[in-house]
């Protein structure tokens, strides 16, 4: 775990469980990374990859566990594909080691590695039909013909491609091709499946369907999945854990809920989802938490979090828009966690509305609050230039350094 994630140490978790509190809904009881004795299935140990002078991956260490669905998330060019290609064997690390199931992968060519990759471009063999594409990997293992046939039809059924078995790739739609690529990489039942932006070309609906298909498959076949994606929603949907990368380094590795609710840095908070970042000075520290005073407008924030920052230091208070309540009126004198604002902009998004309120002199000093549109009609709705009060709970935000 990255150093900044200290509030999520096991102590915190034990406490959270005792208090029947947890971050987000619990999907499944699968937390091998909590146990330091649990041997990792894939391990990057101090891996660096340079292309000439350019450092694509910098001294990266990472453990991924058996049967885990692990997502790599990060901006364009941050080294996700490079990391995956090193695991598949298409790139050699400049330094560092990669282990798979306890075995050092150095010097093992791609065709002898127990991982299979689903390419972003699908990379289907254009001169073979769907069936032959799927059977290709099995033939390389000289599997008996009858078993190959059985496996191929199983894969066709799984990916709902039965009626396309005899078609060539160019006779398929984008979504069908993507499923062929998936079936082909799954057919060998690899210990590790690498998915490089596998759903990038699909429309939203097909994408969501396939995400759930992938999750079911992964649970059914008990394989380890490593998925690269640009799309944070996708990562949060499918993954047990997410690694956020920036410029070839890991910034945070944690469960989707932890990443969202307890980002360890401004970068992660900003990268995942929408966030209000409030610059503030630490004015008080106690066992019960921390008191901050905003640099803009001087309102007081009372947080239940502890911080390493000393008194008088400047920190960032990150709070998600959906955790900010908004009401017409002014704040009560002497109240904490309340901010006076002026409605600046309103976005109606159907399921939710987002209101930007100006809290300082500068046009950029706005705080966003979103709320679910629970009723179809609203009496006396908030509108432009309304005076509003923004409020939030003590445990709504996180304190981040620099």
């Amino acid at each position, binding site marked *: 775990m990255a150093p900044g994630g200290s509030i999520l140490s096991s102590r915190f978790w034990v406490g959270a469980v005792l208090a029947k509190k947890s971050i987000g809904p619990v999907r499944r009881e699968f937390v091998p990374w909590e146990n330091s004795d649990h041997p990792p299935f894939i391990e990057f140990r101090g891996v660096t990859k340079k292309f000439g002078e350019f450092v694509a991956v910098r001294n990266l260490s990472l453990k991924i566990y058996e049967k885990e669905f692990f997502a790599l998330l990060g901006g364009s060019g941050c080294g996700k594909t490079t990391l995956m290609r090193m695991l*598949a*064997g*298409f790139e050699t690390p400049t330094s560092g080691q990669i282990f798979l199931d306890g075995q050092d992968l150095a010097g093992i*060519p*791609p*065709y*002898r*590695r127990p*991982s*299979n*990759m689903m*390419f972003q*471009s*699908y*990379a*289907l*063999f*254009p*001169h073979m039909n769907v069936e032959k594409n799927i059977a*290709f*990997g099995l033939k*390389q*293992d000289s599997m008996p013909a009858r078993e190959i046939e059985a496996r191929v039809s199983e894969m066709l059924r799984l990916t709902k491609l039965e009626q396309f078995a005899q078609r*060539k*790739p*160019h006779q*398929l*739609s*984008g*979504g069908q*091709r*993507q499923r062929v690529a998936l079936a*082909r*990489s799954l057919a*060998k039942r690899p210990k590790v499946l690498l998915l490089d932006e596998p759903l990038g*070309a699909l429309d939203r609906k097909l994408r969501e369907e396939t995400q759930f298909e992938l999750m079911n498959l992964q649970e059914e076949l008990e394989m380890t999945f490593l998925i690269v994606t640009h799309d944070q929603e996708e990562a949060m949907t499918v993954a047990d854990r997410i690694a956020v990368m920036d410029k070839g380094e890991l910034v945070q590795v944690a469960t989707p809920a932890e990443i969202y609710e307890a980002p360890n840095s401004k970068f992660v908070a900003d990268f995942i989802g929408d966030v209000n970042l409030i610059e503030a000075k630490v004015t008080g520290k106690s066992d019960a938490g921390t008191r901050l005073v905003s640099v803009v407008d001087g309102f007081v924030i009372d947080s239940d979090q502890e911080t390493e920052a000393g008194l008088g230091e400047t920190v960032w208070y990150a709070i998600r828009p959906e955790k900010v309540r908004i009401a017409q009126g002014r704040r009560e004198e002497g109240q904490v966690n309340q901010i006076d604002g002026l409605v600046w902009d309103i976005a109606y998004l159907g399921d939710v509305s987002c209101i930007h309120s100006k809290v300082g002199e500068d046009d950029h000093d706005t705080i966003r609050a979103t709320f679910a549109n629970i009723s179809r009609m609203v009496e006396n709705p908030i509108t432009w230039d309304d005076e509003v009060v923004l409020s939030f709970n003590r445990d709504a935000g996180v304190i981040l350094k620099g």
Partner: protein
Amino acid sequence: MTRGPTWFNITSLVLGFSFLYLPIVLLVIYSFNESRLVTVWGGFSTKWYASLLQNEQLLDAAWVTLRVAFASATIATVLGTLAALILVRSGRFMGRSLFSGMIFAPLVMPEVILGLSLLLLFVAMGTARGFWTVMLAHTTFAMCYVAVVVQSRLVGFDKSIEEAAEDLGCPPVKTFFLITLPIILPGVIAGWMLAFTLSLDDLVIASFTTGPGATTLPMKIYSQVRLGVTPEINAVCTILVGLVTICVIAASLVTKRQQVQRERDERAAFGADG
């Protein structure tokens, strides 16, 4: 704006094509001439084709030519394909532009110079000139054409298709034969046919590099014509024209198909909705 062809355009088209093809058409027509005189029409007959079969010398020359063309086209295709692979695949290496320049230079080199230099080489090496030297000479210059044709096919090739094969457990050499070669095959076939045709009708290089007992058909025809054109020559030329035409049409059909296929493959490989 509809502007049909003007009289001027039509006339120049007709003149141009007549200039190109009239001699060949005449040659074909006169190969079916009954009369022995080349310029007088004496009625339709195929007897010169029959008498061709009796002409041992011409048949020998034809047999030599076919063997040379087949062997040189095949070797040139293997070497040219390898050269194209290296040029496209190996990224930047020392002397890469020199290498690619050298591959393509023979395309524009005058044949006389190529023939002469090869002759000098064979003489210097003390090689007995004959079938093998002609074959080698043809391989040399046909290889460049093959390299160009195959290279055009390789440029649009998505490397991740090969990586996918290796990822699925297929070693590199096997990947070449199972994946790469089938995909570039139309280019390779077109290259072979081009090499075959080039060798078939080459006169200059063959004259320089051949020796006794390995006279090719174009050389034979050329030397016979100096003694006077016979209807037999017309017949053999007609056959040659037919053969070359078939090769060229086949090669262009394959190339055409390759283009269509490539567009489809690209769409397939890059996952665009189609």
